């Protein structure tokens, strides 16, 4: 199959990321200009821009018909969905196949299978991969949930069957909480995925979240590109990832990696994917789910392995055989990704939209910045809040952390509030520096969510006080002068 052109059905940094590799491979790229962000930065990186801004009623990135129609109209060979949006929707690859368009990603069947948490879990069980104790089949009522929870024992976690990215999940610690949590989880699942079926699993307190990047071709070759540690999360949203994980030794790494490869084999998976595991206190690993797309955090893997994951996706989609062998894949150094989101950390990570007034990111050998924004661009509320990914490397973990601090101290973003003060705080927190942290890092290890410089509160108070005093002075100022009424107006106003 030839791929001479790609329709990038995504926006922001990932659209730019895909375009970069496509350009290197001599492939022509197409992107959409939507009414949401007609001046978006990613448009500068496309070979062709398709203007759909007239159509304000659809979100083009989630509209399969529109994507297929566009690909056919412009005779585009392939569609790359990026992450989010339609990336894990089995109907897109199905429709692509029907219309002879190459879908850059796994098969529709694989997405279907692995995207459904229940099926994925059964698949893992069948192949001898450890999973957490959980419900058999889906749960649709509180009563069922109560019964299952009784068998498994609290705490449990409710998970939307169709969920992903941390949505539609609720932890239940005792029986009395279940009805409310069930309602909340199903509500969310219903509104986001239009499917309110639930799974119940034993909840592991304070686990680590470790995932393996896999690559597989259509000829049965499968490799993994080592792991990523993604335990720094807030409400199941990843904020910082690192590769490799400080929790694994080579033996464990090989063992879990083998399990990751095994599950791909069992589903005849091809393209890039991520197999997620939980690690408990005793370093037992449990299969959680598989993400059948390129991940936000894929760059840290690229940095330590030197493999261009997007390139591999495209090659696999073309039907090429993987040129990588597991034993050739080595990892070098350490990489950390900081997700700079437009969020107000102090206000509980509330989205902060608006004009990016200033965005200065230093130029360093050890820094890769993947971003869909620059000064003068607008963060709109229609899309996610990711402003930039700072991917920082070092020879060792310690080096990488040191480099992170340097980058953070010389990065300035103004106009929207960002998670930068959060990362500054993380870099100061002992458990992170030691590499001994779990998914409850934010709740238990962080003193506060944002970094404060010495005397910062004092400076804030002083500035506020000065502003107040100036205002009081202004109010008390007699710098007012009378403005005479002009003779012209006077003569007309006064009558007879």
């Amino acid at each position, binding site marked *: 199959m030839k791929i001479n052109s790609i329709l990038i059905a995504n926006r922001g940094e990932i659209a730019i990321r895909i375009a970069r590799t496509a350009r290197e491979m001599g492939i022509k790229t197409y992107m959409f200009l939507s*009414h*949401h962000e007609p001046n978006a930065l990613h448009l500068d990186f496309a070979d062709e821009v398709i203007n759909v801004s007239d*159509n304000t009623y659809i979100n083009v990135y989630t509209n399969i018909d529109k994507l297929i129609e566009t690909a056919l109209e412009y005779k585009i060979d392939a569609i790359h969905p990026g992450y989010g949006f339609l990336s894990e929707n089995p109907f897109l690859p199905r429709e692509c196949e029907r219309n002879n368009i190459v879908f850059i990603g796994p098969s529709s069947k694989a997405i279907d299978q692995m995207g459904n948490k229940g099926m994925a879990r059964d698949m893992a069980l069948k192949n001898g991969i450890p999973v957490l104790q959980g419900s058999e089949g889906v749960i649709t009522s509180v009563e069922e949930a109560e019964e299952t929870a009784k068998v498994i024992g609290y705490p449990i976690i409710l998970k939307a069957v169709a969920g992903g990215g941390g949505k539609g999940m609720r932890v239940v610690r005792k029986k009395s909480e279940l009805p409310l949590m069930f309602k909340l989880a199903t509500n969310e699942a219903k509104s986001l995925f239009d499917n309110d079926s639930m799974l119940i699993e034993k909840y592991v307190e304070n686990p680590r979240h470790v995932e393996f990047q896999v690559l597989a071709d259509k000829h049965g070759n499968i490799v993994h590109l080592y792991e990523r540690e993604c335990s720094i999360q807030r409400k199941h949203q990843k904020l910082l990832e690192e590769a490799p994980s400080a929790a694994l030794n080579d033996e464990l790494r090989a063992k879990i990696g083998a399990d990751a490869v095994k599950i791909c084999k069992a589903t005849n998976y091809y393209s890039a994917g991520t197999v997620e595991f939980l690690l408990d206190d005793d370093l037992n690993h449990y299969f959680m789910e598989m993400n059948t797309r390129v991940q936000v955090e894929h760059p840290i893997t690229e940095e330590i392995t030197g493999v261009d994951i997007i390139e591999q996706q495209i090659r696999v989609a073309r039907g090429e055989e993987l040129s990588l062998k597991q034993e050739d894949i080595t990892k070098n150094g350490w990489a950390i990704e900081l997700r700079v989101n437009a969020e107000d950390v102090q206000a509980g990570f509330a989205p902060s939209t608006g004009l990016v007034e200033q965005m200065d990111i230093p130029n360093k050998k050890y820094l890769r910045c993947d971003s869909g924004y620059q000064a003068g661009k607008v963060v709109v509320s*229609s899309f996610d809040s990711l402003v930039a990914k700072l991917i920082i490397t070092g020879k060792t973990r310690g080096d990488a952390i040191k480099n992170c601090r340097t980058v953070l101290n010389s990065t300035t973003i103004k106009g929207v509030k960002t998670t930068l003060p959060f990362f500054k705080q993380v870099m100061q927190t002992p458990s992170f520096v030691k590499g001994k942290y779990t998914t409850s890092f934010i709740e238990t290890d962080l003193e506060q969510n944002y970094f404060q410089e010495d005397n910062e509160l004092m400076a804030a108070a002083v500035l506020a006080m000065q502003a107040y005093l100036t205002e009081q002075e202004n109010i008390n100022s007699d710098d*007012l002068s009378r403005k005479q009424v002009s003779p012209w107006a006077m003569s007309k106003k006064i009558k007879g």
Partner: protein
Amino acid sequence: MKDNRIPFKRFHERNERLLSQYDDTYFQRQHAKGKLTARERIEYLMDSGSFREIDAFVKPLGKEDEKTYGDGVIVGYGTINGRQVFIFAQDFNFMGGSLGVVHAQKIIKVQKMALKMGHPIIGLIDSGGARIQEGVASLAGYAGIFMQNVKSSGVIPQISVIMGPAAGGAVYSPALTDFRFMTRDTSYMFVTGPEVVKEVLNEDTTFEELGGAEVHATESGVADMIFSDEEHTLMGVKKLLSYLPSNNVENPPVRTLEDIAPSKTEKLSMLLPDDPNKPYDVVEVINLIVDKGSFFEIAENHAQNIVIGLARLNNQVIGIVANQPKIMAGTLDIDASKKAARFVRFCDSFNIPILVLEDVPGFMPGKSQEQNAIIMHGAKLLYAFAEASVPKITVILRKAYGGAYIVMNSKNMGGDFNFAWPTAEVAVMGPEGAVKILNRKELLEADDPEELKRKLIADYKENVANPYVADEKGYIDEVIDPSETREVVINAFALLENKVEQSPTRKHGNIPL
């Protein structure tokens, strides 16, 4: 140095006696309630040493043996930042600040002086109401004050500061003035108190619910400004005064500051959201047009779908009326119409030019609005704009639909300059509504009505709902780049500085009250 000659001796003695009235217990009684005394309030508000008290030695009617002077109110004049003002401050420490005949006469005296001399008058109100002991005479006292309020209305600025209770008839004097300021937690205004409500309606209420500052600042709109403490309330009065002329013949005072242009005015073109149905905060727009830090919002918490306030533009005072898309999409309802109408008339009375920032999808539909006479209340705003002879400029930021477009100082309602941003949508109604009516038949017959509707809406936007159609017909004077709004508006107001519009001679118009 004391002068012991007889006339001077008595002069000093009297003054000393008056001074001794304000002893420690005088202050403590109010302080215990978390309030300042009338004396302290005046000290705080007026320029140091400028206050001259008049009628200090009067005594209540028929109580010649009364030891305390003043009859519960301190009146006089002085300066605030060099501006002459008249003031009266009710003293709760004396018979609960209740209004007797003499008390009323003192107030009326300064009211008359203020009107005759053309200076603002400020009333600091802290009174239990009419003095029951004096009967109908005290009621007549109120009447005299109201009469004077009405005579002064539109001639000199009248500001009421409620710093304690104001109950019964006492509430109507503030109601007749231009602005009412209240202090959170310590001031109340109501016609009938909780006891009477309980007796008549058998309803349990509290002072706060009936007439607390919060209620009046949000629900009823009686309070124009609300402050956390008395000092800030009085500071607010000072600030307001800095925007007002002393009377209806003068122009508002000008500042001579430099470096007043807001920075980042280029943000103006980025402020409107991607989707025309998404909200934004119009106060941000205002702050990017007017002089840095000069916007003084009035009635901020009441009828928030419209924003009104005073500001400076190139050091000159202007009044601003702006639809607020972040509240109810900026739709005009009864409260918003009343709030804006009153403000427009105030500006017109005191020669304050008006800038309208328009983003209004229409009038609020619905039974409750219709049954409560949105027709008449909406007409107030219409009347106010049409009647106003001060310079009036409109900038259409986004939506300008239907009747609401007409009302918001449209060209044919007497707008002196009507500008529009490229994002403006001027039409009889929004695209969705218009398409449904205009193309009802086609839509019913279409194979894919949704698709057709989308196309029709796009066509409507292209052909109708934009600023260009109105511009080409002269209903808009110029379509401007948002980032040059400040310069354009400053220039237009400069042209309008000497605008004179003569209205026909009449006693007064008949505004749809």
